[in-house]
């Protein structure tokens, strides 16, 4: 963990990268659902995918598959980002005590 930068600088850099990742993923989210499933459904319906029309398939099947993939991509990218900026969480055993403030310890 590089401690040369201050916590607040690392936080800012982390947040910038985080926003960029989110913006890309939300763009895909928008394109597959609103784009392919609603606004472009007629042109896409001219293409067939097996017994499906593509636009109809995107609206009732495809967009959902993409959503699932999106979240797992997000998990992967964010875990890498945590590592990169030194924010990865320590492996903890789940607490069984009634510890009400699991995150109360502040970074020194």
């Amino acid at each position, binding site marked *: 963990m590089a401690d040369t930068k201050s916590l607040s600088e690392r936080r800012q850099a982390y947040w910038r990268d985080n926003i960029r990742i989110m913006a890309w993923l939300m763009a895909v989210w928008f394109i597959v659902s*609103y784009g392919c499933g609603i606004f472009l459904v007629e042109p896409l319906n001219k293409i067939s995918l*097996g017994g499906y029309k593509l636009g*109809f398939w995107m609206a009732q099947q495809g*967009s959902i598959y993409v959503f699932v993939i999106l979240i797992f991509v997000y*998990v992967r990218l964010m875990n890498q980002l*945590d590592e990169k900026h030194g924010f990865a969480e320590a492996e903890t055993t789940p607490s069984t005590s*009634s510890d*009400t*403030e699991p995150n109360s310890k502040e970074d020194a």
Partner: protein
Amino acid sequence: MDVKTWTYLIVGITFAAYIGIAIWSRAKSTNEFYVAGGGVSPIANGMATAADWMSAASFISMAGLIAFSGYGGSVFLMGWTGGYVLLALLLAPYLRKYGKFTVPEFIGERFYSKTARVVAVACLIIISVTYVIGQMKGVGVAFSRFLETDYNTGLFIGMGIVFFYAVLGGMKGITYTQIVQYVVLIFAYTVPAVFISLQLTGNPIPQLGLGGELADGTPLLAKLDQVVKDLGFGEYTTSSMGSKLNMFAYTLSLMIGPAGLPHVIIRFFTVPKVSDARLSAGWALVFIAILYTTAPAVAAMARLNLSETIQTGKIGSAEGNLEYEQRPEWFQNWEKTGLLGFEDKNGDNRIQYYNDQNEAFAAKAAEYGWKGNEMTQVDKDIIVLANPEIAKLPGWVIALVVAGGLAAALSTAAGLLLAISSAISHDLLKGILKPEISEKDELNASRVAMVGAIILAGYFGLNPPDFAAGTVAIAFGLAASSIFPVLMLGIFSKRMNRQGAIAGMIAGLGITLLYVFQHKGIMFIPGTSFLGSMDENWFFGITPNAFGAVGAIVNFAVAFAVSSNTEAPPEEAVELVERIRTPGD
């Protein structure tokens, strides 16, 4: 064995499992009661979240809605899965990092305001109670239809079961019960779908069967398009739900509303780490997607089966329609409930089911001697329940569907009850009225609050308000226009202050309520009594439902306008935002 025996057997076994788990996982601390000790694994939490997310509405009503709206029904599919993406990316990891018990607690601390916390508690209780009523009603109706008891007995059994495992086990009990309930409900949903897909297309995977071919080589969807078009209905794969703008607003509202539902949000407080919260969201969507990608297949196949059952031969030929005396047993059973209705308008003792609102086709129908659509009542909510019977599947499959519907209703009800009880005991009692309360007393208070919530929900379940259909739209509108925006602003804007948040919540809430009340006439449709009376308005009252998105935008706009004209939030609030934005420090 007959269907009734199977139903007793399967429902009995599943309920015994739920109660057994409750005893085994009894909560001992407030931490275990509210957030299951924060030690649930991501996959287990994913399953529990899926069970929370998918209520009786998803299980029982959605496929029926899609069956009768075709492509237009996609708004439900995209809305209720895409909303999950919003939750996973915009809220879940940050609220987990915050690391306390409830949604109002976060709102109160982030906006350094007890008023904000109380407003959040009020929204949360209205949203959750409305939802619980719908679920309890579903439980009552499902029992009374299939166990042949009266509605009240069915409801009392349901209340008793929820009481037992939710009050005793808290979040810990609910989580483990919900995992079992998820397994029951997904099994119950997919088994009939697999059978029907095999029957029609020879492909056991419904998602592929929907795009597959029938025995005669025509693609299933092409055949369905043809069949419904020939009877004057809109083409299945292209008939839209209003304009593109309406499809857009409707989908957006269905995404934002559920993403603001408190019982789903608190699920992310139960995993050990922020990275687990992200992963858990991924697993939850996998488990949700299994049902949501099966639903369109169920819908299309049920519509085809229904149509072919009634229109047995060539349209317009004298022998082309089913004789009323020959109608199958499921038809008779559902007629008794009043959810399926037939009236022999032209006195030929045969059933004509077509779209008499389509003028061109109605003219043609008149030439055949048809005098209007004779299926005077086809309740969309019966599709999933009647589906196995329509497809002539064995009794145990029908019983399984009943158990699945009950699992869906009970799991959501339990999650909601917990959200209500924690809002009362933790936010109102400990947070505001009596901060010095001991942990043991708080735990007892939350159990009492939960009992109160169950009794209240039961009371409304027994005496369903006429406006039940309307209140759900209000609940969705509230979640979309108050909780979701205020949480997002709390995380993504450091500048957002107390004044902005409160003004935003009240403005979003106010305009949504005003709008819904204006549409009372459209919304409060009487006589939608079976399981999905709550859903009826999602289908008819498009405008009030789609309004949640507008309410959210108003909330955002007002919040920004007010906060930029008032003083910046204090240092602690900014520090809180910085802390929740990064994991592991």
